């Protein structure tokens, strides 16, 4: 029944961004993180925000999925923003309470940091919401291929990554099942004192680990039985290829980089 369960955040919709090559999206997301550190004016941040919002709109993913991405990092964002606000060096003092002084420069810096966080999270959420985890793994393998020349085990890294990704839903499903079974025996999770909560997790973790190790052995046997040796000369089941749209997106990113440098 849970065969519709998909890991991470990927939402199986159909949009311009969903159809892009995973490498384009990966490069774009990485480049964006780089570009954003050059931005230091209101205009450049406005442009970057516009760019991200446009991407979010094209992806046709409901906005709440993006907002959900912020939640786990909310504390970090607010903490960093507050640090900037209070301790950034600046001359123009707006107000002062004891040894704490808030400067205009600090306020602006804090706002920039806040927007920067938000945009980076939105951009990476856009990547994971619109790209299947396995496509991300394929994309990474393809992008890392040049490293194979300097003896980096690119294929093995990619294999480990895809297997790990492949088993996330399986493990999640299994964790749910074990949790249900232990709850049916009267266990409670996430209640009581911290010490009790940690203890309560043991009946969940031990079966999960044992099953995972068993499964790893089975997988290794199955791979050996089908003649798996290493990545030498293996072909791909899922081919990825650049298209015209990827070129447009690439050009858009080059344009964005230029504009941000010019505005800053």
């Amino acid at each position, binding site marked *: *029944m849970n065969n*519709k*369960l*998909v890991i991470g955040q990927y*939402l*199986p*919709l159909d949009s311009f961004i969903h159809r892009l090559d995973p490498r384009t999206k990966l490069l774009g997301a990485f480049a964006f993180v780089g570009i954003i550190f050059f931005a230091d004016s209101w205009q450049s941040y406005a442009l970057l925000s516009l760019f991200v919002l446009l991407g979010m709109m094209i992806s046709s993913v409901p906005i709440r999925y993006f907002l959900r991405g912020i939640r786990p990092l909310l504390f970090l964002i607010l903490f960093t923003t507050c640090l900037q606000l209070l301790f950034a060096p600046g001359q123009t003092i707006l107000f002062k309470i004891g040894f704490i002084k808030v400067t205009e420069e600090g306020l602006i810096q804090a706002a920039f940091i806040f927007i920067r966080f938000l945009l980076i999270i939105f951009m990476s959420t856009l990547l994971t919401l619109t790209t299947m985890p396995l496509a991300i793994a394929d994309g990474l393998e393809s992008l890392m291929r040049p490293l194979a020349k300097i003896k980096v085990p690119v294929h093995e890294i990619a294999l480990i990554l895809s297997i790990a990704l492949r088993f996330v839903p399986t493990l999640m499903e*299994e964790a749910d*099942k*074990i949790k*249900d*079974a*232990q*709850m*049916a*025996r*009267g*266990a*409670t999770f996430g209640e009581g004192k911290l010490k009790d909560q940690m203890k309560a997790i*043991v*009946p969940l973790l*031990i*079966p999960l680990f*044992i*099953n995972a190790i068993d499964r790893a052995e089975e997988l290794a046997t199955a791979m050996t039985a089908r003649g798996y040796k290493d990545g030498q000369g293996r072909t791909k089941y899922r081919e990825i290829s650049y298209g015209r749209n990827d070129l447009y997106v690439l050009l858009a990113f080059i344009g964005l980089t230029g504009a941000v440098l010019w505005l800053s």
Partner: protein
Amino acid sequence: MVMGIRFEKVDYIYQPHSPFEHHVLKDINVTIPSKSYTAIVGHTGSGKSTLIQHLNGLKIPTHGTVWIDDFPVTAEGIGKIGKALRKKVGIVFQFPESQLFEETVEKDIAFGPKNFGASEEEALKKAAEILPLVGLEPPLLKRSPFDLSGGQMRRVAIAGVLAMEPEILVLDEPTAGLDPQGRREMMEMFYHLYQQKHLTIVLVTHQMDDVAHYANHVIVIEKGQIAFAGTPQEVFKNVDWLEKIQLGLPTATHFATTLIKKGFPEENFSLLPLTLEALADEIAAGYERKKVGDADE
């Protein structure tokens, strides 16, 4: 107080308002009588497992109410009655051996009772009492559950549920993956418990022979809806319908209907046989009647 399990207009929607939304149970209205041995049959993905998870509030209905005796399970959750409900309804999940986690068999069986407030000593005593019920020997108590065979592990896991002394025992395909001998032994064990402890048993199964042998009430679930509820005789009477929805028949019933199709006089069966014994009796009785009839002529 009305006893038994009642589903009243129960809907269950998986992940509503998301692209994964799936209407698993649709307007379920059904009763599982108290002290009955009820079999729930249906295809994989028909909603059987979701249905039984409502019985102890692991899943809660999106709409409607499930009554377990006088405990209501509604969309608001089970709140304060949770513990009492979980103790009342024991669920043995598919492949229950995957829930074992303790260092020793006795500690694992004692996990349930301890969660429901028994002291360490009481719980271990309970474990020792329960073990013979599932057909295992006392020396196993101090062994690690992970040293046991698959069949033994499953028995330990079942003992862990029985140790809670539930009034309602829910079994989700308890014999999956066992060999024929183990299957038979396990089903006999549950039937023995049913008779001895006067439990209500809810069995989810694909084995029509088990339904025919043990159940006295059958619920057929098809695409999230109740397709039929009644006695095994009433269900298996609908031979053509069961074949159409590909649920199949008990071996004996299949044998009898094939005989009839091949020209064996249908009136020889006073009742459609569900078990091998009933089949043999009916055929023998049919011949007796025929003999008497021939002699009369």
